[in-house]
């Protein structure tokens, strides 16, 4: 049965994407992978924003603009993240997240 696409579908999609990203971010050991997974989570946000824009405020581009900001900021964030990975790799020759538990308790 064919139904029209409702906001719920987008929400479920973005939730799934968010969850996948989250799962990766929590389980993957490689820091780069984790950063990529975080990107997935942010993408989920973007899907939400864009979809809501279409269904909730079709007369204004609020969601879209928001999404663009998110993409931009995410890029900056990832950039900084990668820079830090680099310095760390130089020091420790590893980007395995399990190696970074010196400070604890």
């Amino acid at each position: 049965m064919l139904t029209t696409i409702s906001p719920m579908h987008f929400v479920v999609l973005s939730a799934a994407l968010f969850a996948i990203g989250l799962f990766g971010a929590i389980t993957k050991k490689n820091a780069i992978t984790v950063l990529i997974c975080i990107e997935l989570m942010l993408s989920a946000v973007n899907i939400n924003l864009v979809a809501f824009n279409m269904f909730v405020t079709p007369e204004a581009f609020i969601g879209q603009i928001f999404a663009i900001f998110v993409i931009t900021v995410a890029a900056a964030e990832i950039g900084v993240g990668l820079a830090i990975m680099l310095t760390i790799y130089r020091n420790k020759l590893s980007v395995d997240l399990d190696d970074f538990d010196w400070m604890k308790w």
Partner: protein
Amino acid sequence: MVEFAMNHTWLVPLLPALSFLIIIFFTRPWPRLSSTVSIAFMLSSFAVATLAAYGVFTDAQFKHEPLVYAIRWFGMEGLNIDVGVLLGPSSAMMIFMVTLVASLIQIYSTGYMKGDPGYSVFFSYLSLFAASMLGLIISSNLLQLFVFWELVGLCSYLLIGFYTHKNSAREAAKKAFITTRIGDFGMLLGMLAIQIIFGTLNLYELGQIMPNFEDYTTAGMMTLIAVLLFIGPIGKSGQFPLHVWLPDAMEGPTPVSALIHAATMVVAGVYLVGRTMFLFVEVESAMYLIAVVGAFTAFFAATIAVTQREIKRILAYSTVSQLGYMMLALGVGSLTASFFHLWTHAFFKALMFLGAGSVLHALHHKADVWDMGGLIKKMPITGWTFVIGGLAIAGIPPFAGFWSKDEILLATFNEGHYLLFTLGAVTAFLTAFYIWRMIFLTFFGEEKPDNHPHESPLSMTIPLIVLAVMATVGGLIGTPMNPHWQEWIFFGESHHIVPNIPIMLVSIALAAAGIGLAYVLYIKDRNKANVKDLAIRFKPVYTLLYNKYYMDEMYLWFNHKVVDGSARMTHLFDIYVVDGIVNGLGAVTKGTGGILRYTQNGKIQSYALVFFLAVLVITILLAFNDTTSMALVLGGVSK
């Protein structure tokens, strides 16, 4: 002059108090000066007291109405306490007696205490004691009386423990204080009850309203008050079962024993009961209790005295016994007889103590009567005055003790307490026996070669002589032929007791029998075998008596096992339970922190996991739980 003394009777205690201060703050480094100051102030106090007493006893209006004047001490809504002077025949008699005895004993002490490093301090204490005792006597308010009551206790404590370096003195002093403290506890309760029910502690006012007590309280309450109040005298006047401190109090210097633990302080209890007679007469059962306690104490202490070996100890038990007499008299309602005995006892007992002190002084503090003998040859004044004292206490007419003791026995008999009368009579016999046992062993019989006795200096013998005179003639003011005493010092209605010749004869006979037995046992047949092993034959009785019925041991057991035991239990409870809970809470707090810190495992991804698990949990909670039900518990949003 007389008027001045009567209106300024507070000078009587104030003068010795001043001498206390002067000695403590100024003259302490100069012993001679200190004693001079002390004696001078004491004598002037004596002068004032004599004048005041003269004033009282020459004005018939004081027979019924005492002279009262007071000032406010402190007060608030519901509790007003004044301090002042209540000068009536009894208090006039008492201040005269106390200042006289105190003066004599201070003079005596200049000889006795000569060379002691604490000479000045000793005199300061004596002054303080005199001040407190005199203050007690003239108090117009029960609370004021209690203040001095405790102060004499303090002086007694300080003087018993005067030889601070002796452990035994320390223990005796402690014992005296704490034992009397138990009495004070009862007395305090009694006072509180009086204050709360009658709203005043003024003795005179109480005397006015007590007879109508039913307007205020019930008979049961009244009995309670009377009994509670009586606990104080039991402690202070060494009545059974709180008498145990008094014999130990002999650890103090002998003049102290004479002054405090024979003539003055210990009779404070008797005096208190006499002062509050208006309360006791309302409660028959309390009166009976007093009589029974008195008679029993008299007998009980006399039996112990029979076996004791130390001279001062014998005298101490004798004091307890005589105090019992006084209580007995009060209990049968005869304030007259009681105070009469108090008066005569003060002289002959002070005399005997000072005499004993003189002996000890001569024998360098060898205390056992069995180590003495024949002293009268070397120490005639001491010896003969002591004999006078012995006759007085034994109740041989015309010496003072006879008249007063006879008055007591008579009053008891007249009140119909035959059992108590018998006890009193037996005690009279025992008294004569043990006192004369002591006199025979000490002053008569063979001299002991190791002793090198010498007569004491004049400063010591003169007081002995004065006291001996008083012990001889002191009773004559109250003989049946010459009942001045009875006219002045009484409670309720003055009534002249008709002399009862048979009782008088019985009493003389008993005294004579006691002396005779002592003579037989300790002089005449002293070396006969059957006398010698008397103690062995009656071993159990002898041991029991010699060990004072093991009262001390019982108290000691109670003190060590029960009191200290529960103290230790409390301590352990405090450390392990009360404090344990505190420390436990602390440890739990710290421990929780110590365990929870391991949740922080340093792994980035577990942090992220916690983050989202928390989100999940919160979401689930919000989804499935109505927050309002939680809000009921945790308060809050009902906006």
